[in-house]
């Protein structure tokens, strides 16, 4: 009956846990039984001794009864397993030092791989949002290629005409200045239509989110603030709902506080405002919106793409001047974050960590192999005494299981430390253009733990159990006859296996060292990459808008900037000062369509684009951007509309000298008004060298136009100062600025050199980490090569002694042993070379100015590995030189 089976099972588990009767109780019961039986027999007439004997005979074997009882009481299989583990544990404690080394070696490998994997998991594998598969990013695809933001009317039409999305939201990032307390503060703001909250399931912890009525023109002065902002600016006061704050000088009502960490995984917004479309925003040719959409249930990405192709084709027919051949690009949300640079960095690091684990595992193999061989005599005896082959193997495996267990636990502990360090370094990867939000949470979740377990288990299984079993297999079945444990060890197969370990370790280490070396050289090249300007001794800062300034006319603003520049230029230590709409290496700022005046007028959609920077004429001198031809534009708001182009834009003039030519550029109007102004004609008066607008190493050839800041005054200029070497001008500059306007703050002061370094922080971190892994690998290799050689030599001591007794020279034997080791190392080096050759193509995309198969690096690595293996081999083999034939005779 099932009920009985259950009862039995529970009873046996209880017995396994030693609940209920103990062995002593049963022994008592049996003893009582015998006594009672003996008493009865005595009554029947036997004498006490005979009665006792008869009772015992009638009972049968007490031992057998007790054993049968014990077996039935509990779960024999588990009992046996526990016994095996205990036995394994005793072996580990007996050989404490080599066990510790084994555990440590495994732990290092597990820690390296687990830590790296957890980063890979958090950044690459985990989707940034639980609903990621259904969220997509839409961009407009102009006829000539690339992708651009989306125009208002296009967005509204997409919303109307599509059948693939149940939500489409438009957004714009910006920065608005907030006056809530004493000092103004620039906020990372996101203007969105109300669907955005729905798409990402964003919830508020106070108040409400943005709703459709908020996006009506005139009703849009509401704001939802982030949790962090609420805590830092409003002291987590729950009466903040309904409070009126000033954003960009205008009153906004706070209607909600976002839950903590709402979009931390991909954005880190501080304030959400409604995106209302005013009449002047309803244009089709100004591309300024980002679009997220949510697929309808059951709709796949491909279907959505087809649907949007249909919609854009319709629009192309209806509005040919702007939308002819303009398509739609639909990208899965998750793919947005697979920045190729970051991904390849992480994969390289993971590969390096795996290499460390492999080398550690190989060392583990050597260690466990040596131990198993040392126990051969014991095992043979046990087998001969009937130990049971399965049992012996199980105990050997138990030993390895314990090492795997300890190694895994130690490795996880070590990994947690490594991860704390990595977490500190991860922001380096979130430099501009890297798409890693600064708050990516790197944790050890279930997947990571599973990975650690799998890594330990695989490592121990492949490199511990398999070789050990192979080594003792013969011992288990061989007979005791002859010299137990004195068989001539070192069959050629075993020797080959040992040297194969050396080959493997050297191969892995050299590949890792070469890759690291090449990446280091690449990084050094990157640091020296040409940016077009001179960054030494240049300080940059931003001038966030204050309340008073927000409502100025352009003319007033221009005068204000002029005054600031004048005051700042007088600060001792400042050699030159300039204002610019966008700092170098911080992106293009504005991207505008342009064309030559003397060519047929094209609609904005068909024109080529370039970047558009508004600068004071002193900009070029301050950052050392050389003038190639012509002159710079004049100062002053009343000067004619003159512009300077960069060298890349010259190509556009197809051989004609650009100086004196005219360019047509729509006036760039401020954020909030979604329209470019009317075409303005700018006269080209000069050509300057190309300036780097991306990070170091980015393409240095983006075409661009510079115009006078006063004629196109941007609201958020940045200031650049060239100073005397070593001069600290911060305080004086702040004083100078506040002497013009007491409320004007100077934010985010840093040097151009620091910005350069920041743009390659990711590469620097990668190289640093690789260096650590390479060093670890090298260290482990040294240990590994030494152990293998030392062990091989020890195994052959008898043979060497014999040879010396027969007349060989000990020194010669020693050098022969060293040579064997070096030969193995050389083979490993060649394999490493081949491996490096194999990965050169994947690697070359990450390299700047150096080839993946760089001869100099290869030579250096060869030298290092050669020296390392030589020294190690000599030290390991030196015992051979002292071989003493007398020991052989003595029978050791």
């Amino acid at each position, binding site marked *: 009956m099932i009920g009985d089976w259950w*009862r*039995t099972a529970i*009873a046996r588990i209880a017995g396994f846990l030693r609940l209920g009767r103990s062995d002593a109780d049963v022994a008592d019961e*049996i003893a009582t039984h015998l006594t*009672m039986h003996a008493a009865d027999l005595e009554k029947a007439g036997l004498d006490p001794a005979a009665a006792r004997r008869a009772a015992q005979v009638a*009972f*049968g074997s007490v031992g057998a009864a007790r054993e049968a*009882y014990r077996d*039935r*009481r509990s779960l024999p299989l588990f009992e046996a397993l526990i016994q095996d583990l205990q036995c394994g544990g005793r072996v580990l404690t007996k050989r404490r030092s080599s066990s510790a080394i084994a555990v440590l070696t495994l732990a290092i490998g597990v820690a390296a791989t687990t830590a790296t994997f957890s980063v890979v998991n958090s950044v690459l594998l985990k989707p940034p949002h639980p609903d990621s598969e259904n969220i997509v990013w839409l961009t407009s695809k102009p006829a000539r290629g690339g992708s651009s933001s989306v125009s208002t009317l296009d967005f509204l039409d997409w919303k109307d005409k599509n059948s693939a999305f149940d939500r489409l939201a438009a957004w714009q990032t910006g920065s608005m200045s907030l006056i809530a307390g004493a000092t103004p503060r620039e906020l990372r703001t996101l203007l969105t239509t109300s669907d955005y909250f729905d798409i990402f399931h964003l919830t508020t912890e106070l108040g409400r989110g943005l709703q459709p009525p908020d996006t009506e023109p005139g009703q849009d002065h509401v704001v939802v603030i982030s949790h962090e902002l609420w805590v830092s600016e409003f002291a987590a006061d729950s009466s903040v709902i309904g409070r009126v704050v000033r954003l960009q000088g205008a009153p906004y009502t706070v209607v909600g506080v976002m839950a903590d960490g709402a979009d931390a995984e991909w954005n880190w917004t501080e304030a959400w405002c409604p995106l209302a479309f005013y009449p002047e925003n309803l244009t089709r040719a100004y591309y300024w919106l980002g679009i997220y959409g949510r697929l309808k249930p059951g709709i796949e990405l491909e279907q959505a793409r087809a649907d949007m192709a249909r919609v854009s084709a319709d629009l192309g027919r209806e509005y040919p001047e702007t939308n002819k051949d303009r398509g739609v690009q639909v990208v899965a949300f998750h793919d947005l974050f697979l920045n190729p640079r970051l991904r390849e960095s992480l994969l390289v690091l993971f590969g390096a960590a795996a290499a460390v684990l492999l080398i550690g595992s190989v060392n583990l193999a050597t260690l466990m192999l040596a131990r198993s061989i040392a126990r051969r005599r014991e095992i043979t005896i046990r087998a001969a005494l009937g130990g049971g082959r399965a049992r012996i193997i199980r105990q050997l495996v138990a030993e390895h299981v314990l090492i795997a267990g300890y190694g895994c636990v130690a490795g996880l502990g070590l990994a947690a430390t490594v991860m704390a360090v990595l977490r500190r370094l991860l922001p380096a990867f979130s430099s501009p253009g890297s798409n890693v939000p600064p708050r990516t949470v790197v944790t050890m979740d279930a997947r990571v733990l599973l990975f650690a377990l799998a890594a330990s288990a695989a490592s121990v299984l492949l490199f511990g159990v398999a070789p050990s079993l192979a080594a003792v297999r013969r011992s288990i079945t061989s007979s005791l006859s002859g010299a137990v444990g004195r068989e001539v060890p070192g069959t050629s197969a075993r020797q080959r296996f040992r040297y194969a370990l050396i080959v493997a370790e050297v191969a892995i280490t050299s590949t890792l060292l070469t890759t690291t070396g090449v990446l280091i050289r690449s990084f050094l090249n990157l640091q020296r990459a040409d940016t077009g300007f001179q960054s030494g001794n240049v300080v940059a800062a931003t001038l966030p808008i204050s309340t008073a300034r927000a409502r100025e006319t352009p003319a007033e603003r221009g005068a204000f900037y002029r005054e600031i520049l004048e005051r700042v230029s007088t600060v001792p230590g400042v050699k030159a000062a300039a204002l610019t709409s966008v700092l170098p290496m911080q992106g293009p700022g504005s991207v505008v369509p342009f064309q030559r005046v003397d060519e047929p007028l094209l609609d904005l959609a068909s024109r080529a684009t370039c970047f558009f920077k508004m600068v004071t004429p002193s900009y070029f001198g301050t950052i050392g951007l050389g003038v190639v031809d012509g002159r710079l534009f004049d100062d002053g708001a009343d000067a004619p509309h003159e512009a300077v182009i960069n060298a890349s834009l010259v190509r556009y003039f197809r051989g004609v000298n650009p100086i004196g030519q005219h360019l047509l550029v729509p006036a760039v109007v401020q954020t909030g008004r979604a329209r470019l102004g009317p075409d303005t004609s700018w006269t080209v008066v000069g050509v300057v060298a190309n300036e780097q607008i991306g990070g170091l190493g980015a393409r240095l050839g983006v075409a661009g136009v510079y115009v006078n800041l006063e004629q196109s005054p941007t609201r958020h200029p940045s200031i650049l100062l060239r100073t005397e070497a070593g001069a600290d001008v911060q305080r004086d500059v702040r004083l100078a600025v506040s002497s013009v306007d007491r409320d004007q703050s100077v934010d985010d002061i840093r040097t151009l050199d620091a910005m350069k370094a920041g743009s390659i922080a990711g590469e620097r971190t990668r190289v640093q980490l690789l260096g650590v892994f390479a060093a670890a690998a090298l260290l482990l290799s040294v240990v590994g090569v030494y152990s293998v050689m030392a062990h091989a030599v020890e195994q052959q001591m008898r043979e060497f002694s014999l040879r010396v007794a027969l007349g060989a020279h000990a020194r010669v034997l020693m050098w022969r042993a060293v040579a064997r080791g070096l030969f193995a190392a050389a083979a490993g080096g060649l394999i490493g070379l081949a491996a490096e050759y194999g990965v050169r193509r994947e690697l070359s995309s990450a390299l700047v100015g150096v080839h993946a198969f760089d001869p100099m690096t290869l030579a250096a690595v060869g030298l290092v590995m050669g020296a390392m293996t030589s020294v190690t081999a000599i030290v390991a083999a030196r015992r051979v030189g002292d071989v003493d034939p007398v020991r052989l005779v003595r029978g050791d």
Partner: protein
Amino acid sequence: MSRKDHSDVQQGTLALMVLTTLETMGPQHGYGIARRIEQTSGHRLLLNHGTLYPALLKLEQSGWITSRLGVSDNNRRARFYSITKRGRAQLKVEADNWNRTATIVDRFLKTSRETP
């Protein structure tokens, strides 16, 4: 029958004997049960008293008997076993099975003998 089958049959019969003994005699200690079985089955079934104890454990694990410490007639501390309600039910089922099997086999043998 193989040796294993034989011992299985022995196990089964032993269990039946123990249950019957406890049912008719009430609570008994291990030796008492052994003595009773020996008396009734004529020293043929219980070859070793020792085999009784694993059998008692099995019966207890299945919930058919229960045990507690008590004092024997000689003022000795001993463990007394008694049958449970489930045990009684199981005993009836087993006994019915036996009788049915015995009747069928008996009838079969009788008819086989009758047919020439």
